[in-house]
């Protein structure tokens, strides 16, 4: 499955990129699985995604819980808790 990934704030900095398009392995079906896969992929992923408690996600631009499905999604974003306003 082809998926656009976006990273923000310190997740972006540690990933070393703001976005990428990936070809997901068949077993990755939710946000938590995506995070596991990215963390195992390379050192940048391991560093950016180590602190699971401080990671938040959006699927197709809607905030979701970490166990949310990504089946059929076009875009997933990973980022720290928001701090606007």
């Amino acid at each position, binding site marked *: 499955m082809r998926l656009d990934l976006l990273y*923000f704030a310190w997740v972006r900095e540690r990933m070393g990129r703001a976005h990428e398009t990936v070809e997901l392995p068949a077993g990755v079906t939710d946000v938590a699985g995506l995070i596991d896969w990215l963390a195992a992929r390379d050192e940048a992923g391991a560093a950016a995604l180590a602190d699971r408690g401080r990671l938040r996600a959006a699927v197709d631009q809607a905030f979701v819980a970490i166990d949310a499905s990504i089946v059929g999604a076009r875009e997933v974003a990973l*980022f720290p808790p*928001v*701090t606007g*306003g």
Partner: protein
Amino acid sequence: MIRIRVTPEAIDIAAEMALAEATAGAGAVATFTGLVRADDGVGTLELEHYPGATEAALERVAAQAVARWSLGAATIVHRVGPMAPGARIVFVAAAAPHRAAALDACAYLIDRLKTDAPFWKRETRDGEARWVEARETDDAAASRWE
């Protein structure tokens, strides 16, 4: 009338107030403005956001406020990019026939914006940049509206 702006430009409160006041039935306008504090050692503040998702989130928050309090207008203007101490980060306004609705809706707009919209603050102090941590009190403030 819902007005959402995410912009690198300085926020013009006089212009935003005039728009909110001009809506049908406005007898009361409540606003909230968030500023980069000038006195706590921050050199610059930088706001990052998630283009598209941010505007959609702000639209949702504003639409919920309009429906809940029958507002004439809900305005959310949020600045992004680098800004100096004293600058306005965010401005929200709620216009209604009477004050209770305007005041409550204004508090709702800023409370929900804090938790529901994808913005991230990075501040620079003494040349060192750090990402601002989210505050638990923000979740508490947002959840009181549920």
